[in-house]
């Protein structure tokens, strides 16, 4: 376990139970998942039972208990995107990457996720890779988007 890395995160907070979610978010951002050993330390430091930590970690979509890939692909499934065929975009992504939604490719390059709404509804369907938005991402644009990250 990389204790200094975890310490660096824990020192940003007061160490109270209500710091749980921000601490987990920082761990998720830094490690790309929530490693088991780290969670045990968090439980002791914040005085929150490990069961509650797992309850929180599995409730919110942002958290993952397994490592995520180098690039996070989020396909928006908001209402407008849905009407404009985002379901097919997900299928095309999944087919091209050879990975189901919610999983990571074997080479750990891409994690494929769907999201309720990215808030760029005027440019539906929308895909987000890491922090970059791609508007009007219909099925025919999928190979072009993936190519930028391969």
């Amino acid at each position, binding site marked *: 376990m990389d204790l200094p890395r975890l310490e660096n995160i824990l020192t940003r907070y007061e160490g109270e*139970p209500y710091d749980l*979610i921000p601490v987990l978010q920082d761990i998720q951002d830094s490690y790309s998942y929530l490693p088991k050993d780290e969670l045990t330390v968090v439980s002791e430091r914040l005085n929150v039972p490990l069961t509650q930590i797992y309850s929180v970690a599995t409730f919110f979509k942002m958290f993952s208990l397994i490592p995520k890939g180098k690039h996070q692909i989020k396909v928006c499934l908001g209402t407008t995107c849905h*009407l404009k065929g985002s379901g097919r975009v997900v299928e*095309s992504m999944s087919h091209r990457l050879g990975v189901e939604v919610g999983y990571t490719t074997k080479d750990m390059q891409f994690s494929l996720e769907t999201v309720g709404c990215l808030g760029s509804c*005027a440019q539906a369907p929308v895909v987000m890779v890491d922090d970059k938005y791609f508007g009007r991402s219909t099925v025919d644009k999928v190979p072009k988007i993936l190519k930028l990250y391969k």
Partner: protein
Amino acid sequence: MPRFESIDHLREYRRQLVAKRDPNQPQVLVCAGPGCLPMGSEEVAAAFREEFEKNGLGAKVLLKECGCHGLCAGAVRVLIRPQEITYQHVTPEDVPEIVEQTLKEGQVVERLVYEDLHTQEKAAHKGDIPFFKGQMPIVLRKLDIIDPTSLDDYLALGGYRALRKALLEMKPDDIIDAIDKSGLRGRGGGGFPTGRKWRVCQEAMDEPKFIICNGDEGDPGAFMDRAVMEGDPHAVLEGMIIGGFAIGASKGYIYVRHEYPLAVSRLQLAIDQAREVGFLGKNILRSGFDFDIKISRGAGAFVCGEETALIHSMEGHIGEPSPRPPYPAQAGLFGKPTVINNVETWANVPEIINLGADWYAGIGTEKSKGTKVFSLVGAVNQTGLVEVPMGTTLRQIVYELGGGIHQDREFKAVQTGGPSGGCIPAQFLDLPVDYDSLQSVGSIMGSGGMIVMDTTSCMVDVARYFINFLYEESCGKCTPCREGLKNLLFILDEIIHGRGTEEHLALMDELCGTMATASICGLGKSAVNPILSTMKYFRDEYLAHIRDKKCHALVCRPLLKYTIDPETCTGCLACVRECPVGAISGKKKMPQELDQELCVKCGLCYEACQFEAVKIE
């Protein structure tokens, strides 16, 4: 920047700031709002920067990346001041021409200006574009002209003047009276009178008190709050500080969903700036009032938009709601009195304090005052953010601002209120939009998503979409919501697969009744709206799925059949490459064949075909 120790200091700084600015200095304002960012605003801004460098204009022309310019259909939008020329669909390749023609010669680049789809009339100035004509921007007023990362920009337009007035000229009671009298109601969708909420919290005997800004804009199809948080973050802060002073709180939180990373960083920057100059912190403007704001990032749960669930997640628990009363204004965060309002509500507060309650109450309808921002998206020609006085009709919004339906197709419905709202059919197009009239037709105002649908949308599919969304997002705490959604989804799937019966419709009605009565929170209670409204207004579509096993909008996959027309197929193999199950075969440059046994009806071949050779029945 200096720390403002007194009003005189702030006033003098503002005076100098305005005096220093040349109103005739050429400005290029590139939209970097939610609509333009995915279409390449950063690249356009970079192209301007490069072009200025090349032409030695770097010091002369001011370049800003602004918040939402409103008309997202024209992304990427650029505004040139002081001539107020707006360009649309700007790409980096257009930039040299704009610099040469407009900035150097003062000419308009005709091919980049707005052109009316029906009359072909061109309009270079914002005021001449129909989309903007019926609008009344209050919350969106500054979005297209200020740099959201610049406190000076906000100050130069009168920013934090309302804070000064509230802290030094008004008593907390006067502020609450003003908000009460203005008629402002919660813009998150519930429409609870803001002044009354503040009063309850102010009068609560417990200490400390808290302020929360709900920026967990989870409704799919809504991006008003994102645009405001990213484009005018100081307005949100100013509203919250005034609210904190009014109710006697010294701590505020902004809860932003993590799917909005730019909103998080813009708000954090604004908070840091406000602290630096003393709008946040101890003894603000020497008034004796202390207040500070922290950002709390959401972790990805739709239900956290519900206020009690949001509060639980801020306390470190899962986002499960709890029954009200007690309301958060009585017992909220850590059990203490808490005022929780939505982003747009907070952004209205400074304007009400500045211009007065009477001014605000003069806008809108009898029971819904002021303006409302809507994200007008879907099947309209002019998609984007609009801010209109309450009481504007749906027809005005869809046809005058939105420019009518895409490709002149027939209007079918407008969906408001996200998963808690309903689908409003054409017969109610002349309905004035306000809290009460939307509710009277089985929908709700909601946070402001307005999704227009035409004949290519299937209303059974729309209902299924929302129920599936809510099924995945339901926290599972109460049975009516958890089990109700599961069963509604099951029934809708049966209908979509052609296995539905008319008894199913009666059963859904019954389930909806139970859910609306017995669910703990708004998610379950209002989850029935998408079903009830579509069953009421579009019953014939349900019946077509049930009796005829047909989806006339050609959306519900199991009822469709894909074929390849040998006459038009060129044998380019684009469909073969897309097909996930290898159902399409044939020689290159020869017509392809689709094996109906293998076909999973995903429609990827239909989208991939450039020659319209794939047909749907």
